[in-house]
Structure formats: C-alpha cells, structure tokens
C-alpha cells in the first residue's frame, strides 16, 4: 500500500470510508439550524482592535467560508471560537449555550475541532499516533487503567485504533500510518492534520487555510475532500485565500475586513457586493476574469 502512494502525484482519498462523527457530544441540533453563533465579539489587544463586534452564525451541515484580506481577523476569529483567546466583549454560543471561559480542550470535547494555518502536527509521533491523540479526546484511560490493562484501556485502545485507521484510510494515508509525521510530504501533512481534527469527532470542523501551498490540481482534490467531509455529517468552517476554492465549495460566506464583518451571504451575493469588491475582491476579480 505504501508503495502505491509513493508515486501518486495528486492525493487520492477514499470517500466511501465511513468517518461520520462518533455520537459523543450529546444532543445536536437538526440539519440547517444554528450550530454555532458568534455574537458581537470584540477582541482588543491593548489599543489594537482585532475583532470589532463581529456576529455571524454557522448552520449545521453547511460549509461556511470566512474570508478577508490579510490581517482581517480570520484566524483571530478561529482562536476566539476555539478558546485560545477570550473575547473582550460579546461571546460565542455553541448549540445555544455560551462557551464562556471553557478551556481549549473542553471546547474540543464539546465538538469544535480545528487545523492550523502553519502545520502543527506532533512531528515526532507517527501518523497513526497523531490521529489517535485526537480520538483520545473522548477517552478517559488514566494511569490506573493503563497500568493494570483494565477493560476500559483495552476497549478504548481498540476503538481508537479502529477509528484512527478508518480516518487514515479515508485520507489515503493508510500506508503511511507508521511514518513519522515530520517525514510525510507536505500534502500528506495537511491531510493528516484534518484527519487528526476529525478524530475528535467534532460537530464543527474549522479549517484554517487548508489549501495553502497547494497547486490547482491539489486544490481541486481538496474541494472534493471538504465536500465529502460535509456529506459524512460534519459542519465545516473554512478560512481560505483562494477565491475560486471558496466560491466553489461554500454554501455561505462571511467577509471580514479590519476586524469588522463587511458582508455575509451566498457566494454569488458576496461576489457582487461592492464593499467586498472594494475591500478585497477588486484586485482578485480582475485577475480571475
């Protein structure tokens, strides 16, 4: 298997593998209802206003694009949603309940997982171990269970291994399960990061510029991958620079500029919005057409 992938120029995924989120987080809203709401979030770093009264929401089952020029506050917005930063005012509600001062790992356990703009895998662990750390988010084996190899440990290890392998299979990384993450090619690392995030069985998957550094063929594959992930029962929030990718894959788009939301709507609406064109698309639009 590993040999077959070595000569593969473009990533191949196996969309038929069932990677649906495990039922771990309790009751979920119905398809199309609000999964996560960002409510009037303001974030100040000293005098710098990184986010200024930003509000938007994500419906279950959709792919929402979060776009904006460099420094618009997209990643900062991610960081507020995943508990890295506490908003100065306003708040984030998940399934109608405020996230409050929950810690990062608690938010992950609630059902929000993310990838990173700069790949941040556990470089000296194998691909399989990376994904298993994600699966472990919902496990509770401690020193006692591990030391005496109690049934809990055995069950969680078997479950974790099975789910991790499914995810690797889905991503087309099965043959590289035992490679160190740092030895994987760039594209594989990107997909491994997504696999690791999916391993936590999130309701909401936040992808921070997953296509960075990809060529057009790879980007097309990535769009397919993102759609497949959504079809398997995930809601996706996508930060992306590549207009073509965002327009092609998303259901709705939120546009940020200088920490403020300047537009929201379907890809077509956003494309024609003069404020957006002025702020961001003006240059790109000409390039693209």
């Amino acid at each position, binding site marked *: 298997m590993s040999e077959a992938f070595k000569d593969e120029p473009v990533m191949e995924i196996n969309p038929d593998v069932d990677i649906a989120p495990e039922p771990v987080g309790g009751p979920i809203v119905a398809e199309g209802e609000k999964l996560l709401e960002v409510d009037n979030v303001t974030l100040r770093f000293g005098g710098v206003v990184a986010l200024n009264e930003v509000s938007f929401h994500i419906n279950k089952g959709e792919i929402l694009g979060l776009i904006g020029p460099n420094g618009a506050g997209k990643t900062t917005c991610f960081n507020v949603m995943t508990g890295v930063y506490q908003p100065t005012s306003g708040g984030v509600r998940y399934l109608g309940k405020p996230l409050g001062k929950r810690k990062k790992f608690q938010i992950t356990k609630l059902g929000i997982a993310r990838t990173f703009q700069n790949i941040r895998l556990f470089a000296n662990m194998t691909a399989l171990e990376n994904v298993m750390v994600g699966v472990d988010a919902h496990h509770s084996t401690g020193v006692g269970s591990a*030391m005496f190899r109690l049934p809990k*440990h055995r069950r969680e290890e*078997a479950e974790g291994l099975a789910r991790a392998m499914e995810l690797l299979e889905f991503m087309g990384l099965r043959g590289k*399960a035992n490679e160190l993450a740092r030895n994987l090619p760039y594209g594989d690392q990107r997909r491994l990061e997504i696999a690791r995030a999916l391993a936590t069985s999130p309701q909401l998957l936040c992808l921070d510029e997953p296509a960075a550094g990809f060529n057009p063929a790879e980007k097309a594959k990535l769009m397919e991958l993102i759609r497949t992930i959504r079809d398997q029962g995930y809601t996706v929030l996508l930060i992306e620079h590549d207009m073509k990718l965002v327009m092609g894959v998303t259901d709705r788009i939120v546009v940020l500029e200088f920490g403020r939301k300047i537009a929201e709507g379907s890809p077509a609406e956003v494309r024609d919005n003069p404020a957006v064109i002025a702020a961001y698309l003006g240059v790109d639009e000409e390039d693209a057409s």
Partner: protein
Amino acid sequence: MSYAQRGMDWVRALPKPAKIVLWVLFLVFLFALPLLNIPFITTPDSDFGGVLFTVSTYVLVALGLNIVVGYAGLLDLGYVGFYAIGAYTVGVLSSLHGSWPWLWTVPVAIGAALISGILLGAPTLRVRGDYLAIVTLGFGEIVRLTLVNSQWLNGAQGISNIPRPPGAELFEVPSLDWSSGAPVVDLSNTTTFLKFGITDQIPYYWLALSVILLVLLFDKLVKDSRVGRAWEATREDEDAAELMGVPTFRFKLLAFALGACIGGLSGALFAGKAGFISPDSFVLLLSILFIAAVVVGGAGNRWGVILGAIVVGYFPERFRDFADFRVLVFGLALMLLAIFRPQGILPPRRAVRAIEADEKLEALEEGEVRV
C-alpha cells in the same frame, strides 16, 4: 545503526520461546553479576555489590526523570529534591522522630514525594521551557537549604542509624574466583541470601534491581497507552495538543508526580542502604548528573536512559583514580555528544513502535475486534 540496536533487532526477530529463555538468562545474569567477579568489569577498589547498587539508584532515578524530561518534555533541574524528600522521609520516620521499620516508611516516602511533586508542579507547570528549568533548579536548592537549616531535621548533621530493609538468612550463595585465570566456584566467599548488613552490599543491589524491573514494567504499560500519547503530544506541541482535546496541564502534573514518586522511591532505597543521610548527599551536582544520564542515554527511550545512567554511575566508580576528573570528562563528553549525537546514545526508535503498531493492527483485523 549502532551495535546495541542491531542486537535488539536480532532479539526481536527470535521466536517467542527463545526470546523468553534469553530474557530469563539475561535476568539471571544481572542478578548474579556481583557474584561473578568478572575481570575488568568488576571494580577493583570498591565493593562491586555496592557499586552496582549505586548504579541501580542512578538507573531508577533516570527512569523516573525520563517520564518528566523524555516523555512529557519538562526540563526538571531539581530532581534531587524528590530524591532528598524520599530519603529524609525514611530517615525522619524510622530514626529521627520515630522508629518505624524501613519497609513501612517506603510507601510514605513515595507519598511524600508525590505530594511535593504536585505542590511544586501545580503552580510552576504553567510556565514553560527555560522558565520551568529555573523554577525546578530553585526547588532542588530550596529543599537542600531547608534540610541544612531545619533543626527539626537535624540540620547539617543529618540523620544516622536509619534501619536496614528487613531480611532473612535463608541460604548462602557462593561466588566465582578468577585469581587462577579461570572461573572457580569459591565457597569461602559467600553472600547470605537476603541479609542486609553493612558489609553485605549485594542484597541491596538485588533489591534495587527488583525495584527497577517493576518500575520498567510500570513505565512500559503507562507509556503504551493514552497517557503516554498525551505526554508526547504535549511535548511536541502543547497548544496543538490542548486543541486536540488533551488536558495538557493535568498530564504534565501527572508526569511530574509520577517522576517524583520514582525519585522518592530511589531516595528511600538510598537511605535504607546508607544508614546515614545528610544534606550533603543531595547537592545540585546530583541533579545535573541525573539530567546528564537521561540526555546522554537518549531522552524518551527507557533503554537509552538506563544506558546513560550506567555510564554516569558506573564509570566514575570503575576508574576511581580519575574520579576527580569526572566532572571534566562528563563536560567534554556532553559537549561532544551535543555536537555529534544530540539525540543521545540510544534515542527513541520509531521502527520498533511501528512493528508493535503493525502487530496490533493485525490483531485488530484478524480478531475482528468489535468496537
């Protein structure tokens, strides 16, 4: 690939019964080591049993410190503090302010080290990297200075008359004599099985070796689980680990506490053998040597750190004439190692783990484990 690694691979490739026989033979060899009096290896100037005990405490400490430094990636420069707390708990309870038997004091010593580990870790594990190293460095010194200045702990005079581990005089074990050039069983030079006396050093080594085997088993079982993965993830990228659902603070504290436990246990063993402890037994240099053992051997690999501990503990005893130079030699060796092999002599090997993972996957697929 070094010879040691090739040897390990060769053992790994053997069929299971052969592997078990080999391991048993190796264990028998380890236990018999002080009786064999093998030329060159045996220390000429000091009792070999005692030297092996000293090496064993280094190994034990290195295994404990490896959990903290190697697995969880927390640079702890004050590990001697836990060693001291273990030893002093034994001293206080069994001699200075009580007359408990040695064996009863050991669990208390482990508990005391555990609590001190949590007390130190809870506030300090919020700082990272170099800052943590400085805080722990301070902790080691604070422990020592407290011992020196506390009248209740007998200050710089230390604690003497610490009782020995309980023993029995069951049978005599002969040793080998090589003076004629070939090994001859020497029935006049015997060791009483499990008599812990002042001149009977070998039983202490047996005790320490048994403890090491238990700790190794514990280490293997815990490392090869969710706990071990969480430690490694935290070491690799703390923020990413947290965002993947790892409660990093809790796991760092756990690593710290377990490391402290093993440090305390080593201290208790040391106190039981030495019979006398004073603050001078727990100087900063010892912390540095412990770290050196872990780093030289290969942080994160339990066999590596054992090798490192043997290097750090054994060579100064074997070459006693040059013992004064040992800090100089270590300094040079560490510099050379840092330049040419920064990952240590035996760094963690993924190949081995890959084989193990493959075995597990096969079991999963063949056994059709229902999940």
